[in-house]
């Protein structure tokens, strides 16, 4: 917020205020986070001069940090600032910030866009605009970030955010190109390399991920999460010995990290090394005694080395900690059967079977539905909106399907129906910025009745 106030203050706004000293004092209070004091002073100014855009804008900035209950007022003040100074990039920017705080991402993006048009080289509005577009899955985020990269070539944050946007919207190769250019330009930027490495791992480019994450680690990224992903990438690339070395080093560096010890124990188990696995998982269980997954893997290790009583106890503990976790049920049931306690084992296996059946049904329904949506999406992408609409209409209604229907309807110029579909989607999923953005755009397309 300090940055935002500074922006306001740094740009000369044609002010006809009779009390510039009071405004300066209010802004000083705001920058010191004395919101109550700033608000009181600004309201006093506005009583004297109700059309003072700068005062309205500053009041909006003052209200925003004061909790959710004040955000609505902040939006009103921002609107007044923009109304009284429509050509002021600062007023537009502040209005956009208030709208964003109110969760109205699409409206916020509109104001940020206006602000950015009025002040093309101002970083704040453009930054907010790129972020707003990215939040709504709007591809205009790309030129916004590209402009930021051009304006601030020394900042690695923007390539990282642009790549992140492209990855999350399925534009994988474009994201990789941006990230690769970023790491070439900022070879020593550890967070950028770590993010790129994680993205490569998500893309199943395991060898590339391992290499990128190794560089990030060399540059000082030593958190347990990154080290764990690095080891996973090595495992997936089939470089088991390197993964083992990396994990053993990581555990030495983070001796209290139960997740890292779990990773190492599982790696040992996958290689048939029961005793080292048991030792590692035993330590992990001591560090995280309430972690069912660790107890389950500990049980497996104990079973592998023939410590069946202990294995049974570990499986039972895992079941107790997480009754809906299927794997420990299975392992416990199987162990009991193997130990000749068939009836007892079968009871556990019956529970397992019902958990498995449910999960299998959910998986089938989810994946099949996903592929059906993809078919509609592909039809939409190749311009056959009518076919896409028919597909979406054949699928059970939820926010995603309604959004798809709306996009197809929009392509068919059936905008009022598209708006209705999006309104239903919003009702089902009230906090989705993308739906808000689509709804705002669609409303704008509805022809005005004379």
């Amino acid at each position, binding site marked *: 917020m300090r940055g935002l106030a500074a922006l306001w203050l740094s740009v000369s706004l044609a002010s006809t205020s009779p009390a510039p000293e009071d405004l300066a004092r209010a802004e000083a209070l705001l920058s010191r986070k004395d919101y109550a004091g700033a608000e009181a002073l600004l309201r006093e100014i506005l009583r004297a001069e109700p059309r003072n855009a700068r005062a309205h804008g500053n009041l909006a900035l003052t209200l925003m940090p004061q909790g959710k209950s004040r955000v609505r007022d902040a939006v009103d003040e921002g609107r007044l600032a923009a109304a009284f100074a429509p050509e002021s990039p600062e007023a537009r920017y502040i209005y956009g910030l208030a709208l964003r705080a109110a969760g109205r991402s699409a409206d916020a993006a509109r104001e940020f866009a206006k602000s950015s048009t009025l002040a093309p080289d101002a970083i704040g509005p453009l930054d907010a605009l790129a972020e707003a577009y990215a939040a709504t899955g709007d591809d205009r985020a790309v030129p916004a970030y590209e402009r930021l990269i051009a304006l601030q070539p020394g900042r690695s944050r923007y390539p990282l955010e642009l790549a992140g946007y492209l990855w999350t919207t399925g534009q994988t190769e474009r994201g990789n190109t941006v990230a690769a250019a970023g790491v070439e330009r900022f070879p020593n930027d550890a967070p950028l390399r770590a993010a790129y490495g994680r993205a490569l791992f998500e893309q199943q480019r395991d*060898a590339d991920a391992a290499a990128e994450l190794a560089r990030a680690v060399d540059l000082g990224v030593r958190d347990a999460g990154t080290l764990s992903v690095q080891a996973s990438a090595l495992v997936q690339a089939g470089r088991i010995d390197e993964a083992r070395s990396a994990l053993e080093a990581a555990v030495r560096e983070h001796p209290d990290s139960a997740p890292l010890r779990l990773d190492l124990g599982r790696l040992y188990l996958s290689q048939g090394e029961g005793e080292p696995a048991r030792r590692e998982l035993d330590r992990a269980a001591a560090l995280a005694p309430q972690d069912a997954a660790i107890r389950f893997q500990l049980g497996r290790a104990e079973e592998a080395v023939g410590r069946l009583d202990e294995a049974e106890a570990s499986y039972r503990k895992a079941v107790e900690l997480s009754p809906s976790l299927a794997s420990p049920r*299975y392992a416990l049931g199987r162990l009991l059967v193997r130990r000749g306690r068939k009836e007892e084992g079968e009871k556990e296996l019956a529970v397992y079977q019902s958990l498995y059946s449910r999960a*299998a049904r959910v998986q089938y329904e989810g994946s099949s539905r996903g592929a059906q949506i993809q078919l509609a999406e592909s039809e939409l992408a190749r311009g056959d909106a009518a076919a896409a609409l028919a597909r979406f209409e054949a699928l059970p209604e939820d926010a995603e399907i309604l959004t798809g229907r709306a996009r197809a309807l929009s392509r068919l110029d059936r905008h009022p129906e598209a708006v209705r579909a999006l309104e239903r989607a919003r009702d089902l999923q009230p906090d989705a910025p993308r739906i808000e953005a689509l709804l705002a755009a669609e409303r704008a397309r509805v022809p005005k009745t004379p």
Partner: protein
Amino acid sequence: MIGLLLALAAAPGDCPTQFVDVADRAGLVFTHDPGKTPEHHMAETMGSGLAWLDYDNDGWMDLYVVQSGPFPPSKGPRAQDRLFHNDGDGRFTDVTEKAGLHDTAYGMGAYAADYDNDGWVDLLVTNWGGVILYHNEGNGTFKDATAKSGLAGVAGFVTAAAWGDVDGDGRLDLFLARYVDDRGESKLFCGDAATGQREYCLPMMYPGTPLLLYRNGPDGVFRDITRPAGLGDASGRALGAVFVDVDLDGRPDLYVANDETTNFLFHNLGGGRFEDISIVSGTGFDAQGNPQGGMGTDAGDLDGDGLPDLVVANYENETNEYYRNLGSGVFEDASISSGFGRPGVNLVGFGLNLLDADDDGDLDAFVANGHTFERPARQGITRAQRALLLWNDGTGRFREVPCGPAFAKAYVGRGSAVADFDNDGDPDIAVSNSGGPLQLLRNDGAHGHWAGVQLVGRRSNRQGIGARLVAETPSGRKLTRLALAGNSYLSSSDPRIVFGLGGEEAIRRLTIFWPSGIVQTVDSLAAGKYHRIEETETAKP
């Protein structure tokens, strides 16, 4: 390049034997056609299988190879399966026309067995859409007996099959596995919706399908007994099946490998009824209770304890499974501890055969691998993949050593079947590759002594399918082998049993547990030849 490929194979010194692809020089000219379409139908990923059979009883194993062809099936010549006659001199001749075989459906698997006990081996072909049962007329030709045998109504995505006498009446009954229900496939899109570039969908996006079990009646008609047999509630995505008596109670149990779904083990209760012991037996999932992408399956005694173990070839990122039989229908997952599973982790396994590759008396394993996707997502994973040869140290522990140039080259491997096609006592392997050439991996090189057995059933089915054979060597070593009809992926192998004897030169005593319940012993079988053994008429006390 050739030098590099050869260098990838293990040095001859590491290998007891070498496998060399001799398909071309043997005249086995066949290229599988998956019938690729822009729509990317699931059926296109399947590849096909093959069957070894001595259809003319000349003592040499012939080879039937299944073709897929255009999709949807158009019944044209591109889809014509092939029968290759083994000329006994290392060469094969295409006798498809002469034999009257005209299967031009979109083919899946082939399963040879003498279902009518007339002494001539018949052939079942599974297809997308149904099956064809070819009756061997005994004169070098086959006749389509599908309608007459009551199998014309079989529908769906039929994949694996297995022959076994489930009710002990001396006739081979038929299990049919089906994969997914793909009738709603046109409603699915997998791949990049934005560019329209398709990839094949995953099996779990399709509904599973019920299994089918047919009883072979005295009138030669197969009748659907799926529901009365207790299999009616099982819905899978089945790709592999094997009849094997896991608890040695004399009745064939049924194991089914399913893709991304629990595998099934049905315990035969007698009287044509089964109980589902998939989960309690420990053969339904991996050790953590996760279903795997099961493809081919086989059964055999891997650790020399006399009990049939089960193996399954699985999808990428999964181990191939080795379920060690502990007795009484209980198994443990020995995939990791045995070394059997790990070599397959980055591969997509399909064909899987247990075979004593070096005739040393223990069962080794062959795995044909190849991806289902055109562009596998994981870095470093290719569509074409090399096959695996896993060597057993005699205790059920395995080490992967690719022996011979046949293992240096990658293919999109699918069905595989084992036969001693040159009658030299060592197992050779035929492999069907999706979109690629047929391979015949001839087993060359030094190996142990051997003795072969060809069963002739009397009260049991004619080929003794389902028999368990225990050979005792002069040193007292006991070797257990199983007579199966249907295993691996979409395939069936040489029905003859070969005992690798290592350094020993004879079988001191052979005990045959016939499916009829008769237990027959034969003393002193010489090494280096096949012995034809007829079932005795009465049980030995």
